[in-house]
């Protein structure tokens, strides 16, 4: 055995060595002659680094606009960079003293960045370009400000509405029924649309609060509640309206059975794939933003859908001013960035109707401007875009609560929501706990702010 084996071993040793050398040569050749960075920056221009979060088709749409801006310019060149976890990266870069020129943040980032003095106030620059609140839809300007100062300018935004899969309705024999406007009507419709298999397992549901589960905290707003009293810096998570809202939320698992519902939920596909529950009909109604149209277009263009404002309690019902969340992507200039004027040149250019509508359409979002062209609405990929636009103009549209401790607040809320959904607790005590923890964070932040002498 030993002789044959050694011979075999040396042979494989040689081929192994050859393979290693080959691999090394290939790698070296690749490094020497391989691809090099594609972006070439023209000389003699001010180069602005613009960090944005979008990839794929959304990123391409922004890149097209940036290219067009660059062609129109002789002094400024914007370099579009896609960055993952953009708020964290921006934070590190600002802390390290080498921030980019423009960053596309999420709207909930603004209070934290602004209060820390990490952003350049834009009031003066905006005034010089004639950008005033009345240009924008009613709920958009407040989103860009914090504590009466302007910190950001919108690039895209969207509001959240209730999406209804009309194919599921006709399947269930419900035709020509008026859209639900109150929660009672929603409950009724949802019940009628829920289908169980012969085994008793849930096959599909009308409506659930957990798909998509991105905004566990917003249900109270449809009962007239809110989460923060800015003036007194106090959390209002366990207000009477909120408690009633989450009692309503809990009525769903208690009616359908927590375990059945869990089993159903864990079989749901993921958003952004062809298996997204709204597309497969597993969930006939859900709250979503206008970007939903792009998902439908990509995977099931024949689907019949419409979006209506999320129903409210009967007491809150007012069809003239729908209730809904508004969220947006906001461009900011970090404090300490080297070329604020040039950066704002680009930001202001993006605020022009042509650019902002083109981007909005590509992303399947609403126009943030007050005046929307008929053409924008007519050619928009989302057939219900006017529903979303109406919410953005409503006095009862709401954004993320404006506090720098919001991320802590919402993580408490998410945990409480899961306990409520699993029926492990009653909403009142869960929300009281959230309120305590949130108030603790709010007080701590206020105390530290005070100690910093502000």
């Amino acid at each position, binding site marked *: 055995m030993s002789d044959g084996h050694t011979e075999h071993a040396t042979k494989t040793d040689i081929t192994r060595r050859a393979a290693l050398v080959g691999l090394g040569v290939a790698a070296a050749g690749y490094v020497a002659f391989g691809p090099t960075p594609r972006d070439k920056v023209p000389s003699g221009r001010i180069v602005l680094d613009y960090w944005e979060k979008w990839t794929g088709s959304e990123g391409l749409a922004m890149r097209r606009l940036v290219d067009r801006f660059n062609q129109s310019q002789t002094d400024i060149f914007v370099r579009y960079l896609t960055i993952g976890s953009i708020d964290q990266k921006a934070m590190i870069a600002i802390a390290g003293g080498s921030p980019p020129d423009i960053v596309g943040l999420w709207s909930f980032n603004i209070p934290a*960045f602004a209060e820390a003095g990490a952003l350049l106030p834009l009031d003066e620059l905006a005034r010089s370009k004639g950008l005033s609140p009345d240009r924008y839809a009613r709920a958009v300007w407040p989103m860009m400000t914090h504590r009466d100062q302007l910190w950001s300018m919108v690039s895209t935004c969207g509001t959240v509405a209730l999406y209804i899969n009309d194919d599921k309705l006709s399947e269930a024999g419900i035709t020509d029924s008026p859209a639900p406007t109150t929660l009672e009507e929603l409950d009724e419709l949802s019940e009628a649309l829920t289908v169980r298999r012969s085994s008793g397992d849930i096959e599909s549901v009308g409506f659930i609060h957990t798909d998509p589960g991105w905004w566990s905290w917003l249900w109270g707003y449809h009962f007239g509640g809110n989460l923060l009293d800015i003036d007194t810096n106090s959390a209002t998570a366990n207000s009477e309206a909120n408690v009633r809202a989450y009692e309503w939320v809990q009525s769903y698992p208690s009616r359908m059975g927590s375990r059945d519902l869990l089993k159903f939920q864990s079989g749901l596909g*993921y958003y952004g794939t062809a298996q997204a529950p709204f597309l497969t009909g597993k969930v006939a109604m859900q709250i979503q933003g206008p970007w939903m149209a792009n998902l439908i277009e990509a995977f099931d263009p024949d689907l019949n859908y419409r979006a209506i404002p999320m129903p409210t309690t009967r007491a809150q019902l007012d069809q003239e001013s729908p209730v809904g969340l508004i969220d947006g992507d906001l461009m900011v200039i970090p404090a300490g960035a080297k070329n604020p004027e040039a950066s704002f040149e680009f930001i202001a250019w993006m605020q022009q109707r042509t650019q902002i509508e083109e981007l909005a359409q590509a992303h399947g979002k609403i126009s943030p401007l007050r005046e929307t062209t008929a053409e924008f609405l007519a050619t928009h990929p989302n057939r219900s875009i006017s529903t979303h636009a109406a919410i953005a103009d409503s006095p009862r549209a709401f954004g993320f609560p404006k506090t720098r*401790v919001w991320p802590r607040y919402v993580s408490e809320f998410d*945990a409480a929501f899961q306990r409520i959904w699993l029926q492990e607790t009653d909403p009142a005590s869960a929300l009281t706990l959230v309120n305590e923890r949130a108030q603790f964070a709010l007080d701590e932040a206020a105390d530290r702010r005070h100690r*910093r002498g502000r």
Partner: protein
Amino acid sequence: MSRDRIQREPLRQRLAGLVWVSPWLLGLLFFFAIPMGMSMYYSMTEYTMLEPPLWIGAENYTSLLSDPVFIKTIWNTLVYAGFVIPLSIVLALAIAGLLDTDSRVSHIVRLMVFAPTVVPLVASAMIWLWLFNGDNGLINSALSIFGINGPNWLHERGFAMAALIVMSLWSIGQPVVIYLAALQDVPKHLYEAGSLDGMGPIRKFVHVAMPSIAPAVFFNSIIQTITAWQIFAAPYIMTEGGPDRSTYFYSHYLYDNAFLYQRMGYASAMAWVQLVLISVCILGIYAITRKLWSTRS
């Protein structure tokens, strides 16, 4: 000259090693000592990263003690580690024992066992989400063959933790490789003696091989302890810490504090506490293994 040299040699000789380790001394200073000093300072401040640090003394450490989430993540991490470390040791040892031959099959299986350790986490998390799908995932479908109605793995308290433990056992390629190496060192004649004594393969493995690879077991359990305390990416993608924080781990909370809540000072304090906790765990493991093996050899 030569006499001079003899006189100087002892000192030069005694210090000769310092030249050899000088790069590492510099590295320790620059990449460890200085950053750790800075982080110690941060842990005594409120540091949002966006503003200059604000000195608050020991406040971060005292508020840790009354932070229920902090306590919860320690508990979760200990539960996770308590399952993963022994399970991975037993499983990796068993697999290494089976693979300890020079056959073609063994080499192919080695590759299969090693491959998962190098699958990028984004991809492997998706793979496991698919496997654990409660309604019609592969695992529940397999269970239903035996008439078992599988749980909703990632959505139920307890099962979500179990799912993460199972997933972590999928990537035990590194310890297997190290055990395989250690097994090469077991003298062949001991095996033969075992055979003559009429031992079966399992008894041979336990009585002959185990004592020689005990140091490797210790080594791996230390590495496993460290990685268990640092588990982050898999739950971050798969359960986001839920349901109700039942899979919310220490490193995840630390990361959230540092970057999501902008409490870098608090996170630094957590990191220092983590260092202490890991050291305690390792001392515990050291005590256990020494007791176990000192009775043997």
